């Protein structure tokens, strides 16, 4: 999974967690360019994080759980989690 694919997975998952609402353009740009984004800044509640994890699993068959995310602080850590598991799905 290359950088673009990882970011695409995360971008799509953020879209799912936002329930199809248009993403803030600045956030969309930051995700696409890989800038550091704090998870708290996404403003997701527990339901949104469930949708995020479901979307990641549907795209990658990797089972990212909300309990995994609780230990993370930035989107970059989720990217790392995905990269580390490439090829193991």
């Amino acid at each position, binding site marked *: 999974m290359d950088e673009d694919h990882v970011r695409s997975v995360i971008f799509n998952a953020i879209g799912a967690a*936002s*329930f*199809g*609402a248009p993403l803030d353009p600045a956030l969309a740009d930051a995700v696409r360019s890989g800038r550091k984004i704090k998870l708290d800044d996404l*403003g997701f*509640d527990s*339901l*949104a994080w*469930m*949708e995020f*994890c*479901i979307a990641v*699993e549907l795209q990658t068959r990797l*089972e*990212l*759980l909300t309990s995994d995310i609780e230990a993370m602080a930035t989107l970059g850590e989720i990217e790392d989690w995905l990269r580390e598991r490439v090829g193991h799905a």
Partner: protein
Amino acid sequence: MRDFAQKARECSTENAWNRLHIDLENVLAPQELAQLARYEQSAGPFIRTAKWLDKLRRLSPDVFDAPRCFQAEPLHANLTLYRGAPYARNRRLLFTFAGNAGRVMLPMPVFLQLFDPLAWDVLVVCKQRGQSYCDAALQDIAPAAAGLLDLAEYRSVACLGTSSGGFPAIVAALRIGAAVGVSVGGSPPPADRFAFPAGLGGSGSTRLVYVHGADFERDGVSAAILARHAPGEILAVPGVARHNVLAALIAEGTIGALLDSIGISGGG
């Protein structure tokens, strides 16, 4: 219940279970959830479902102990009527507009449990994924609903919307002459995609209320913007520092007081 058993067999990961539970939460009436809980106890154990049911029980024990009887009736791709007791007189219609998550800030059975089916029917507008309340079809949903239901059979109509459903609830309340229109945590629509109808604030007979958590600044700003378009009362709920005001109040056991204060008393 056969549908549930079939879908449960297909769930092989925690996320798949979450998908199933979220989808159920968004549509089940209270007595259907209570029935599912009985099924889980008799045909289970479905461990993850039992945990999910426990979470809902903590939120609203009455859903399981004395579930309200509403019958779901799809009217349209975006409209579901949860019909109470059709023989009761002096009934009211609660016309609700769900937020982006497809719910009125609460799981549907928990929300419906707040209302007496002898006094209320509850109509839910729910966007399909990717739809916007700015789409033409949804901007006209209030007149469409008025064409599908005989609003005159109701003693009164109240409109309530949450999050992205807040402003459409206000607009609908004014368009159909509802007694009250309530936006909870509502946000203004993008100006380039939605124009507030001219003279929107002109009706003096519809009470408008904008509810938000007093300690959640973003929603306070949004309420003020909405109230400039359609003047009404701004109700900042003390001690709530989150967007989901209804979840905060149901956890505190004070949601009934809020409903009473905005003219949507659960008992009618």
